[in-house]
């Protein structure tokens, strides 16, 4: 184990800004990307469903 306390862990031996600046942005972007892709999928599915509904109404 490298760390005596949570504060020591956050300080990263004086490199806190750089280590957390890297890991933080990495985590943020890698959480954002799947959310954006899900939104893209939902958008196309919504329009496909609307299309399907319109077609089924036409037939009636």
């Amino acid at each position, binding site marked *: *184990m*490298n*760390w005596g306390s949570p504060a020591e*862990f956050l300080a*990263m*031996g*004086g*490199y806190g*800004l*750089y*280590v957390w*600046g*890297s*890991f933080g*942005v*990495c985590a943020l*972007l*890698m959480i954002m*990307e*799947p959310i954006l*892709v*899900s939104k*893209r*999928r939902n958008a*196309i*599915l919504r*329009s*496909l*469903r609307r*299309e*399907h*509904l319109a*077609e*089924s109404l036409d037939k009636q």
Partner: protein
Amino acid sequence: MSNKIIHWFKYASPQSFYPLAGKMIPWFWALAAVFTVIGLWISFFEAPTDVTQGEGYRIIFIHVPAAWMSMFLYCVMAAWAGIGLSLNTRLSSMMAQAIAPTGALMAFLSLWTGAFWGKPMWGAWWVWDARLTSALVLFFLYIGFLALQAAIDDPRRADKAGAILALVGVVNVPIIYWSVKWWNTLHQGASVSLMKAPTMATTMLWGMLIMSLAFWMYALALVLMRVRAIILEREALTDWVKNLPEVKGNAQ
């Protein structure tokens, strides 16, 4: 002349690939989660403090996987684009398109984490060093590919233009890889190579390899998710898409 596509592989058509990709995505997410947990544990709790770089070196555990993925994804993207260009297969071009944003993200992360590593170690966020410059060019190639595809309305023409850009840009990948050897760079040489034993502690090496696997699984999951969305967008007018349960099922 017949319009029939030769089925080299069953899954070369969007119609049969779409459900297969859907089945694979949860597995890749699960693997990504497992590798991330193990990788982060090793990165922060198992790997010892570096003698010369203190705790700052821990950036390596995301910097190297991101940089590797950015180069690897570029090659895969160019390969799919090339196949799409030469064989005119729809799915290949969609794959290339699905890879580009994730590749661009990896290229950005490699530059970002590199800057956050360079500042404490070299005293500069950025230097015009051969490795850094060629990595920046890679990022711009991804952006160029995405911009070119977005600028052309006809998707098939966009695929062809993008493919040519992607294929020409491949020349940059070996330049990045060997830049630290060919030029006198500030960036350190490769710590891991196929030719010689790695020049780093075993725990650090394992942490880096497991984090790389996590990035791999993440990229696979993301690319498959995106290619499924692209398939729906491009095949919106086909009967098989119209008959999908997620389209037909709950039309409100």
